[in-house]
């Protein structure tokens, strides 16, 4: 599995099978990654509304308890351009990328924080893997590991996307149909289903 | 269900008269025109002068692109309130004629408006003659409408 360099990235973007749209400036495409910008929605984990994250609430996601649990877990903020949002120390926020991303079936995306932000304490809390054939915005789980709040503005480059060629051991490409994804055609962040078919293991 | 039936009656004419009276008083004490709340009579008078200047008194609040009314309801005969402005319009014509004589309204109205502007902003002081005519206009308008 090899990472795509700038030339290959631009080639795939030009061909149209890889989509990262819009790229507002050419220097967003770096030597081996593409900078991603913050979008205009912030979902903040809201302490006090839920006592704990409970997979049991997701077993019946369309029932009242499941919906209530999802909706009350986060507080949503719409942050138009030229406004800002403060991420306080210890907070976790879900934000979408500005860019719409479509990954072809021969590539896998990996999203990490940009190092300049990471040095300020801003982290993509988990290394986000974007599966082949994904289409939509990318949800970034931002955490502030610093000691002072960080002011974030939609449009700022806060993450980077590296793309890797997926090859089978015999050198051919993996033949992957469109996988079932709860986040396909996502336009904004949403809480996922942590129970994900594991209901047999959940008590309560 | 509302506890009371409030029949809305248009009071634009008496309100206009009251605004004219207030603004007339500001001409004697211009500092009063810059206090909070003074913007209301000044803006409103300016606006109705615009309507008079452009003969544009259609002012029904219409909204709702969908023709939902009348589909399921039985109609009753009521009149739209399109004559709210007549008394104001007549009073303005009369006051204008008395205060400005033969000066056409296209010239007279901007002079009155410049006086209101000076009161609101303390800039671009109109001449003493213009201020005097504006005061006469406002006093006559107020007397006619209140």
């Amino acid at each position, binding site marked *: 599995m090899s990472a795509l360099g700038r030339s290959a990235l631009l080639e795939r973007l030009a061909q149209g099978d890889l989509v990262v749209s819009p790229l507002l400036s050419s220097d967003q495409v770096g030597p081996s990654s593409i900078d991603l910008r913050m979008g205009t929605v912030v979902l903040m984990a809201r302490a006090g509304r839920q006592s704990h994250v409970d997979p049991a609430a997701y077993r019946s996601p369309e029932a009242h308890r499941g919906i209530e649990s999802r909706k009350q877990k986060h507080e949503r903020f719409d942050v138009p351009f030229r406004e800002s949002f403060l991420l306080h120390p210890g907070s976790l926020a879900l934000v979408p990328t500005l860019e719409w991303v479509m990954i072809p079936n021969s590539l896998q995306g990996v999203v990490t924080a940009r190092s300049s932000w990471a040095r300020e304490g801003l982290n993509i809390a988990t290394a986000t893997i974007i599966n082949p054939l994904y289409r939509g915005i990318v949800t970034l789980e931002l955490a502030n590991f610093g000691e002072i709040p960080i002011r974030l503005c939609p449009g700022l480059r806060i993450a980077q996307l590296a793309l890797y060629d997926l090859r089978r051991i015999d050198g051919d490409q993996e033949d992957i149909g469109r996988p079932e994804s709860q986040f396909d055609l996502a*336009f904004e962040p949403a809480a996922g289903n942590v129970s994900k078919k594991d209901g047999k293991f959940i008590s309560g | 269900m509302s506890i009371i039936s409030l029949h809305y009656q248009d*009071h634009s004419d008496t309100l206009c008269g009251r605004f004219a009276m207030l603004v007339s008083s500001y001409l004697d004490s211009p500092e009063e025109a810059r206090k909070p709340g003074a913007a209301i009579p000044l803006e409103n008078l300016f606006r109705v002068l615009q309507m008079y200047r*452009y003969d544009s008194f259609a002012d029904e*609040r*219409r909204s709702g692109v969908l*023709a*939902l*009314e009348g589909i399921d309801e039985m109609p009753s005969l009521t009149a739209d309130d399109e004559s709210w402005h007549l008394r104001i319009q007549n009073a303005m014509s009369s006051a204008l004629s008395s205060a400005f004589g033969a000066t056409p309204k296209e010239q007279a109205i901007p002079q009155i408006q410049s006086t209101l502007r000076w009161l609101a902003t303390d800039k671009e002081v109109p001449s003493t003659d213009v201020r005097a005519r504006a005061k006469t206009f406002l006093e006559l308008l107020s007397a006619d409408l209140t």
Partner: protein
Amino acid sequence: MRTAKDFLEQECRNLNAVLEETLRFKYGLDGSQQFFEECKNRLIFIANSISSVPSTDSANLRKSSIALLELSGLISRIERSSVGEYSWPFVEELKQVAEAICTEETVTDRNRAPMIHVFSDGGLDKYAIFTEANRPSNAGKRILTIVFPRSLKHFVLLHSILGHEIGHAMWQCSKHQLALRDILNTHLFSTGTFATEKDAAMWLYSANAPQAIKDQLSAFGKSGVTRNNFFRWASWAAWREEILCDLIGLLTFGPSFVAAECNLLYSFDAEGTGIGQKHPPVGCRGNYLLKAAHLLGQDTHGLTDPQIGAAVRTFWDGLNARRQPSPWFNVFTDGQIQDTAHSIAALLQTLPPSCYSSPTEVELKHLLGQLNGTIPPVGFSVSSDRTLNCQKIDFRHILYVGWIKSADLGGLTFEQVNRLCGHAIMQQRAIDIELEP
């Protein structure tokens, strides 16, 4: 027992407290300061009015009580506004159009844009733009309130219908009303079906009216409404204003307005024969709109690309299928429609960016290509030589291609097309910011 004056003075204090409470929330795209100050000024004025009259002056106290009611309604609507409940990117674009049209000369400002307040409410029938009255009131600065249906937050394609509401706001501007009235009296209403109330009533009650119309009129007759007094029940001025606003909607939003209006109106009135107190029958409105779009050339692009041409034709064929076949519904001649539309367009062209202009074929192809690829249609592309290109795109062109796509959804749903276009309008805002000098 408290007097009426005591009660009203207390209500003023109550409203002041409520107004301060509203500052707990962030409302409006531009913040709360201007709304707060305007409402405060109005409250001060009303409170002064109440305190200056004796408690026995019931007439003036009653006027003040009505003013307080209106203000309390306004404050509670402001408090309900939440940026998250409507499409703020669409509002930012709409504001540019509204501000261009509704700027007024005021006592302190020669070119003041209205204060725009947005909130969401209810469902399909809630689209509205409320302009405050021009006539004397307790308002200082006028507030334009735009209402989006709460249920349609993400359905930007339908939001094009607000072009009609912009028309009402435009009519309320004194400086435009004179010009518009001249245009209407010279062209659209100079002769023919809508020349006078009597002519319109005669047309409505004519023998070749559709049976559904006759049945309604017969039912109205039981309540005393006849041909001779029809426009005592219905408002002649309102009917004419609604026709004007349909044309302004077309001229400001283009084909997406036609599509939104046809879809919304016919969803409530499938036959197009409902007679409204303030609106002419839907069938007439659809017919003259489609005719106007055609006469303005909005349905013809001289397209050379066969695929794009086919897609655009499918869209317009779908709309034209809604045209009412009976000639009774055609209330204006082509000449009347054309002359009126061109005259209003000339007026709008002096108020950029209010006047809609058609996209080029290159733009159409690019945007539709993106949408067909399930990509939000924006002004971004990567050339074959690997150059990244950003360009400005009118949001109304995004809406247009959304509707073209909706005529042949492929694998997408109508909701998904709306979401893609809504997302595009947001992204295009970022592109426009980047392109600013």
